[in-house]
C-alpha cells in the first residue's frame, strides 16, 4: 500500500507525539507510526518529570497519567550522608507512561495527525538517490509511506538515523545500562520525595533511584555505565538485598538503555530529522530524557513547519543550530560535571555531598556549575580532598 504525507514520524514515545501535534496543528499532513501494539507499553522509564514541563510544552495536567506529586529529592552519598531538597510546592510528578505516551499520541491525533500502532519502519524509500519516505510493515502487510520530511523519533535503538547515513552509534561508556522494578516497597524514607543513592559500589557511574508512585509502591531502578562488566540487574538486586528493603513484591521488570552523552552532532541530514533518545538528547547526570525530548521536538517542529511552508528543506538545518546553541550547550555543561563526578572515589563523593547545599545540587543538575564549584573549592571538606579540589579547580 502506498501512502503520501507531508511528514512521517517514526516512534510514538515522547519526542514523536510532540512533533506530530505541533506540525499537524499548522495544517500539514502528518503520520506517526510505532511498532508497539499498544503505544506506551512496555514502559522503560522511572517516570519522573519536573512540573514545569506541562506548561512549557502545553501538555494538560491530566490526573489519568499522574501517579503521584513529588515535592523534592533526597540524595544519599555512599556512606549515607543525605542532601535533601523539599519544597512546599509540587516540584515534579511520577507519571504512568503507559497512559502518558498514549495520551500524547491522542493529543497529536486531535491536532489532526494520523497514527498507526503496530507499524514498524524497516527501511527508507530512496529514489534517484533521494530519500522519499519510509518502508514499514503492519501485520505482515508492506506499506510505502512517502513524505517530504522524515522524523526519527525511534528512541535508543534508532535505526532510521543510521539508514539516512547519520552515525548514531553510541559508545558503551555513553550508555547507562538500566534495570528497574516497579514494586511494593514498604519502607520508602519519604514518599513525597524521589530518592537517589550514589556510590561506586552501589551503582558505578550511575545511581539507584526510588521514585514513589504510591506510599508503598515505587519505580526502583539502577543505571550503571554501559561498559561495566557487571550487569545493571546485579547491582539492583544487590542494593535491594543489602538495604533491607521491606515488602518487595515485583509488579513490573523494566529494562533499557539511556544515552548519557554522545549527543548527535548532525541532527538533520537531507530531509531526515532526529529527535529525542534517537539523537541522544538526555541529561547525562540523571538520565532524564522526557523533558529534553519535548524540547528537541518543539524546536524541530518549528523548523519542519517553516521548511514546509517555504518549500525549502534546507531550512530544517536551523533545528541543528538552534538545539546546539541552547539545550546542546547546556547538556554539554552537564556532561562536563558528570565527567568529574564519575572520577570520584566514595570518600570524595561523601565529601561532595556534605559540602553541597540543596540549591547547589539543583544548579549542578541543570548544568550551572561555575558558581557552585567556586564555593566548593573553599569548603573545608573539599580542601581535605586534593583530587576533588584539583578536578573542580580545573573545571573553572
Amino acid at each position, binding site marked *: 500500500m502506498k501512502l503520501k504525507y507531508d511528514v512521517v514520524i517514526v516512534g510514538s514515545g515522547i519526542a514523536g507525539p510532540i512533533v506530530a501535534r505541533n506540525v499537524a496543528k499548522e495544517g500539514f499532513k502528518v503520520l506517526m507510526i510505532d511498532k508497539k501494539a499498544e503505544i506506551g507499553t512496555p514502559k522503560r522509564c522511572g517516570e519522573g518529570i519536573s512540573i514545569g514541563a506541562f506548561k512549557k510544552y502545553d501538555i494538560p495536567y491530566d490526573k489519568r497519567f499522574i501517579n503521584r506529586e513529588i515535592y523534592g529529592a533526597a540524595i544519599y552519598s555512599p556512606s549515607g550522608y543525605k542532601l535533601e531538597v523539599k519544597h512546599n510546592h509540587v516540584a515534579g510528578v511520577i507519571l504512568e507512561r503507559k497512559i502518558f505516551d498514549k495520551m500524547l499520541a491522542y493529543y497529536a491525533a486531535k491536532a489532526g495527525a494520523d497514527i498507526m500502532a503496530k507499524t514498524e519502519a524497516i527501511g527508507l524509500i530512496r529514489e534517484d538517490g533521494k530519500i522519499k519516505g519510509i518502508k514499514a510493515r503492519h501485520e505482515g502487510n508492506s506499506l510505502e509511506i512517502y513524505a517530504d520530511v522524515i522524523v526519527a523519533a525511534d528512541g535508543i535503538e534508532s535505526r532510521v538515523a543510521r539508514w539516512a547515513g547519520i552515525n548514531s552509534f553510541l559508545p558503551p561508556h555513553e550508555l547507562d545500562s538500566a534495570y528497574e522494578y516497579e514494586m511494593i516497597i514498604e519502607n520508602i524514607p519519604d514518599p513525597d520525595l524521589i530518592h537517589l543513592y550514589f556510590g561506586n559500589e552501589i551503582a558505578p557511574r550511575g545511581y539507584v533511584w526510588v521514585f514513589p508512585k504510591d506510599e508503598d509502591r515505587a519505580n526502583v531502578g539502577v543505571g550503571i555505565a554501559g561498559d561495566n562488566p557487571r550487569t*545493571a540487574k546485579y547491582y539492583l538486586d544487590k542494593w535491594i538485598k543489602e538495604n533491607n528493603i521491606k515488602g518487595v513484591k515485583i509488579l513490573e521488570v523494566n529494562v533499557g538503555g539511556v544515552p548519557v552523552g554522545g549527543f548527535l552532532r548532525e541532527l538533520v541530514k537531507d530531509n531526515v530529522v532526529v529527535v529525542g533518545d534517537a539523537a541522544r538528547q538526555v541529561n547525562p547526570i540523571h538520565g532524564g530524557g522526557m523533558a529534553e525530548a519535548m524540547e528537541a521536538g518543539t524546536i524541530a517542529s518549528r523548523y519542519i513547519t517553516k521548511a514546509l511552508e517555504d518549500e525549502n528543506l534546507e531550512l530544517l538545518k536551523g533545528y541543528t543550530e538552534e538545539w546546539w546553541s541552547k539545550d546542546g550547550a547546556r547538556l554539554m555543561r552537564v556532561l562536563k560535571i558528570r565527567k568529574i563526578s564519575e572520577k570520584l572515589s566514595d570518600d570524595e563523593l561523601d565529601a561532595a555531598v556534605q559540602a553541597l547545599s540543596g540549591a547547589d545540587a539543583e544548579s549542578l543538575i541543570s548544568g550551572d556549575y561555575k558558581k557552585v564549584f567556586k564555593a566548593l573549592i573553599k569548603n573545608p571538606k573539599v580542601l581535605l580532598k586534593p583530587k576533588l579540589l584539583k578536578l573542580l579547580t580545573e573545571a573553572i
Partner: protein
Amino acid sequence: MPKVEIIVDKEKCYLCGSCVAVCPKEAIIIENDEWNFFFDKCISCKFCVLACPVGALNAEEVEQ
C-alpha cells in the same frame, strides 16, 4: 582478537535495544520483536555483551 559469534539467551532478553545502540556495525537488529545477529558485520568488540542490562548476551569464539 578472535572472531566471535554473539548468542542471545531469548528467555532473558527484553528486546530493549541497548545492544543495538552500542553496536558500531549494525550487526544486531531487532525487528518484528526478534533479536537478530549478523555475523558478517560483527567486528567482535563485545560492546553489546557489556551493555546488556541483564546479561542476556554471550560471545562465543569461533574457529576461522
